[in-house]
């Protein structure tokens, strides 16, 4: 169609007739103001993190379920000739991790209040406390391995390293995330109106911290 009209233009050397401009749909009243969509209650990032936390909760539930089977079926727990776990030091470590959840919360609250510098300071404290937790855990693990508690020494050792190791890996992951968020905060990424990145990191950190007392009570105290 277009080809034939172009050929006709070349042959007759005249412009095709232009249709008279008409108002769309035959006129009518002018359109109203543009409709503004409602802002989403939860943005996609938060929803995604919530889903991920649900999956993480189920992952740890599976591990805890395995622990319950072996723990309740055992005649004696811990099994004979296996070292006892360091309850006291890990209790202090639990307190350190719990305090880090508060500092993370204060960081989010500070950025909401417009105190960006204060938020960064609280992030630094949170990262320090998380690193301290991991360092103490690593130190205790080295001592336990020297005492003969390894992954293959017994079911006790296997369960201990699987459960606590999985949590330690999550704390490490959260710590890396925290460092990335800190870098973004230094570059001025977050403001009073836009601090989603910090908030979702805080959600993940809170999950990791909230999980620890459950594991501590189950593995160390029960």
């Amino acid at each position, binding site marked *: 169609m277009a080809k034939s009209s172009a050929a006709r233009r070349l042959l007759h050397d005249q412009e095709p007739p232009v249709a008279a401009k008409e108002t769309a749909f035959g006129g009518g009243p002018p359109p109203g103001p543009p409709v503004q969509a409602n802002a989403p*209650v*939860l943005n996609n990032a938060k929803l995604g993190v919530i889903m991920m936390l*649900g999956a993480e909760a189920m992952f740890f539930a599976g591990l805890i*379920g395995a622990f319950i089977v072996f723990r*309740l079926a055992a005649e004696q727990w811990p099994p004979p000739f296996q070292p006892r776990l360091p309850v006291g030091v890990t209790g202090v470590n639990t307190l350190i991790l719990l305090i880090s959840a508060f500092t993370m919360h204060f960081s989010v609250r500070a950025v909401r209040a417009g105190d960006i510098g204060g938020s960064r300071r609280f992030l630094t404290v949170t990262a320090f406390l998380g690193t301290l937790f991991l360092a103490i855990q690593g130190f205790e693990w080295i001592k336990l391995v020297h005492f003969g508690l390894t992954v293959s020494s017994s079911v006790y050792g296997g369960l201990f390293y699987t459960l606590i190791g999985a949590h330690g890996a999550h704390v490490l992951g959260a710590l890396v995330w925290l460092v990335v968020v800190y870098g973004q905060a230094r570059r001025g990424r977050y403001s009073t109106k836009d601090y989603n990145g910090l908030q979702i990191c805080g959600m993940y950190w809170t999950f990791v911290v909230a999980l620890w007392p459950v594991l501590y009570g189950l593995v160390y105290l029960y």
Partner: protein
Amino acid sequence: MVWFISIDCILLTVKNRYATLRLLDTMQLFIVTALFAFVASYFADLQSVQACAVCLTGADGSVADAYDWSVLFLMTTPYLVVGSIGGGLAYAYRRAAVKKANDAAAEEAPKHLA
């Protein structure tokens, strides 16, 4: 056999919902087969159908209790997780709706009262 007949029954319903007589025949066959399977299972060797790890090993006492508690825990957790997420989302949506209604009311209020 029971599965085969029930699938056939569903397919028949989907294909021609008015083939009532043929459907009744199929359902009759399904009921007879199900009854036969139920009676036959009573006389069959029950050891061969114990697929559960606890039943198969004949575990009892503390091992069976441990499995029971673990199963209960794992059965409850998904409901807790999904319920928490659903509850949290419902709370967030409700709070947003209340805030929106309050904002609209504040906008509609006369200026001299604001």
